[in-house]
């Protein structure tokens, strides 16, 4: 059922106002894509400076105050202005209506509002970071942030506060859309796993983000007015801040990784030409992770002085939350069994994701194991662990998804060899950057250290060398994807011979997605034994 239309969503209207006042979910996705790409390179530039500085044990590139501002900028920008919005607001915005056979999200204008809030929040925070910076680390720990920091804490926090409403609105929009706008015949168990994982993500966005907003508002309140909330000098409790902060920020980790898992599920089935192994288990594992993820925040506080009993309970829950992730890894692997596996660039990213995410997950167990965490918490072991999840996992999945749906979004094919080269380069650059950091961690190098012991230099040099490869590898797609916009071959409606509804309309899709509402007949990943795709709606 190829949509037979002259214009698509990109060519429907060329005026600027047609972009900035658009309510088309696909255009909003493109707006978000441009914005978060900018933030990705801002955060990446800060990371590059950090790794440059750490190539030697002494301070030689910048002063300590600047170094502290650099890692704060890196963390704040990457967490709130790249990782959290990355897949939901770009691929999610673009694909949710397409995958469920809808014309748009349930609240198109709310969707545009979400982008404006994000833009305003991002601008406020960027302004704070550039006019003087913040030196608290992305965690804003009190009482440092509320009393001792000499940075623009209130402004930075205000930006994150505003951007939080963007998260909430996007989450709300997805939940309502998935409940109300599914095409006829599209039952819950016929939804692509990407939709399941975005649903789980949206639930966390809606439930956890307001709690972060409250926490940040209290930080600003204490800093401005001196009302004692977190500072013990004013009668407050610093651990209260940590409980409140991590009650959001641990679930936020799942906001970042769940959409990545959704993308990988799509890629693995398509490039194995096979139904996803254990579909229902994978689907429900997303929900389980979202639910259990709310009960593990205390594992960030094993050495903070919370009671040993609380520590043990949080340790237990942290092991429990790892089970559904492990189940997903097994199911992706089993999906390859007796499939027809091809190695196009998106699949390379997916395979890289499985390997890197597994290393990140396994080292997460080291940290959940309370007696061992005491030793390595707040060291580079933790840094390495969460970069394996966030960068090795999430960013890799994002790039995989971007390549996979690029023909659908732009109507153009990217150069395959360049894309494979970039994927392989990212994989090696990533491992070279972050694996040495595990070793730095067990050798006792604390995080957020501007100067360090000279005997640790060899590992830092390795890591910095890897980071330079990684930085180049991340720049590559900018060029060849940009090139493809103008000179890439035109994409057919279904270049990967996949099954989902988004592939049953033209590339790029028309303004209202489908010429006729698709009627869904079967599950999302039906392939014959010879690997032939059977579209969901025909």
């Amino acid at each position: 059922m190829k949509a037979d239309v002259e214009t698509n969503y990109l060519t429907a209207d060329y005026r600027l106002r047609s972009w900035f006042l658009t309510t088309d979910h696909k255009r909003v996705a493109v707006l978000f894509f441009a914005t978060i790409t900018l933030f990705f390179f801002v955060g990446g530039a800060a990371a590059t400076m950090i790794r440059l500085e750490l190539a030697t044990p002494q301070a030689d590139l910048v002063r300590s105050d600047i170094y502290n501002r650099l890692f704060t900028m890196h963390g704040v920008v990457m967490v709130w202005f790249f990782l959290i919005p990355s897949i939901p607001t770009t691929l999610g915005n673009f694909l949710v209506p397409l995958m469920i056979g809808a014309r748009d999200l349930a609240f198109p204008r709310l969707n545009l509002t979400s982008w404006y809030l994000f833009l305003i929040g991002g601008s406020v925070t960027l302004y704070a970071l550039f006019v003087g910076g913040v030196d608290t680390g992305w965690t804003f720990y009190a009482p440092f942030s509320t009393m001792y920091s000499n940075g623009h804490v209130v402004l930075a926090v205000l930006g994150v506060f505003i951007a939080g409403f963007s998260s909430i609105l996007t989450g709300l929009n997805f939940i309502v859309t998935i409940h109300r706008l599914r095409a006829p015949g599209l039952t819950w168990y016929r939804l692509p796993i990407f939709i399941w994982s975005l649903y789980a993500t949206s639930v966390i966005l809606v439930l956890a983000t307001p709690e972060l907003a409250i926490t940040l508002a209290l930080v600003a309140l204490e800093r401005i007015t001196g009302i004692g909330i977190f500072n013990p000098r004013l009668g407050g409790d610093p651990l209260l801040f940590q409980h409140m902060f991590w009650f959001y920020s641990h679930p936020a980790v799942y906001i970042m990784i769940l959409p990545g898992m959704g993308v990988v599920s799509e890629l693995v089935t398509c490039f194995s030409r096979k139904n996803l192994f254990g579909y229902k288990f994978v689907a429900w594992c997303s929900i389980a992770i979202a639910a259990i993820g709310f009960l593990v925040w205390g594992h960030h506080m094993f050495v903070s002085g919370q009671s040993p009993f609380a520590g043990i309970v949080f340790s237990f829950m942290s092991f429990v939350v790892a089970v559904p992730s492990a189940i997903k890894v097994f199911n992706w692997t089993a999906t390859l069994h007796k499939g027809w596996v091809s190695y196009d660039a998106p699949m390379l990213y997916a395979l890289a994701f499985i390997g890197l995410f597994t290393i990140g997950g396994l080292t997460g167990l080291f940290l959940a194991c309370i007696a061992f965490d005491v030793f390595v918490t707040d060291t580079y072991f933790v840094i390495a662990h969460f970069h394996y999840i966030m960068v090795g996992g999430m960013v890799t999945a994002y790039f995989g998804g971007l390549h996979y749906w690029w023909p659908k979004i732009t109507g153009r094919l990217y150069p395959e060899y360049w894309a494979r080269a970039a994927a392989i380069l990212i994989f090696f650059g990533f491992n070279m950057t972050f694996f040495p950091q595990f070793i730095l961690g067990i050798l006792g190098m604390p995080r957020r250290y501007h100067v360090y012991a000279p005997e640790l230099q060899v590992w830092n040099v390795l890591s910095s060398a890897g980071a330079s490869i990684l930085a180049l590898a991340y720049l590559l797609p900018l060029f060849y994807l940009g090139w493809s916009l103008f000179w890439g071959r035109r994409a057919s409606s279904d270049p990967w011979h996949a099954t989902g509804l988004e592939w049953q309309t033209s590339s790029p899709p028309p303004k209202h997605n489908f010429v006729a509402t698709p009627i869904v007949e079967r599950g999302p990943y039906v392939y014959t034994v010879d690997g032939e795709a059977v579209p969901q709606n025909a």
Partner: protein
Amino acid sequence: MWRNWIPFWEPGVSSYAGDVDLLFAGLLAMSVAVIMLLLVLLAGFAVRYRAGGHADRSHRIRKSWHWEVSWTAATMIGFLGLFAWGASLYLEVYASAPAGLPIYVVAKQWMWKAQHPGGQREINELHVPVNRPVRLIMASQDVIHSFFVPAFRVKHDVVPGRYQDLWFEAEKVGVFQLLCAEFCGTDHSRMSGRIVVLEPAEYEAWLARQDVGGTLAAEGAALFRELGCSGCHFGTSAVRAPPLAGLYGKPVPLAGGGMTIADERYIRDCILNPHAQVPAGYEPLMPSFAGRVSEDELIRLVAYIKSLAAEPRQ
């Protein structure tokens, strides 16, 4: 020793470091096994079932639930084992700290100050005897710091507004690195020091060499009089305040029910926030000393009240 065989690993040198290292080895072995299994399966499937290959694709696994149940159960059991190992070691080490040599540590931006009961003070250094448990009573004067000695496998945050306890027993004479592990501002990465572990005799000699005004308790006693504490807590004042002799380490029934142990933390809290935990049978009359005494002075007052433990209860 087996610990020397883990690549890039320097064995720990405190009494429980061996157990932590063993736990690490266990976690590492499990991880390597899982990663190898996964890589073999991924690579094996990816090559064997590559598009265009001629491997047999018939008889695919259709009913998958028994696979799901099996690997879920296996994962659960494995994880439970690791959890139990980590938790039991943690409880063994931290639930019942041995009575150790008490040393007071005050952290501030960006230095560590240690004070021995005999009145010896040192900055960014801490001398301790080998093979003897040391108990640190730590306080922060400003933001959160974290006392971290990698070689001892030990770390604890030093949160302002409360005492934090930490114990270790060094097993090897030598000099080890002390670091601050919680970000605390500009010179966070320079807030480091040395732990000097000495033979007991050398440690005594070191203590004797230091220039000491008086023991912490003696200085605390002077401060106690200066601040006017003795007026109510001793003597025949009209105000009846709880006697402090024999108090330390004893259970204290609280007004409004409940019990607490009169440890360093309780004594500190009572000086700063006397109305929070009033002993049963007394009126909440004591003024707060918050803002009037520094962490250093608090340490002296606490040391003095502790020194009264040996005296008979009144």
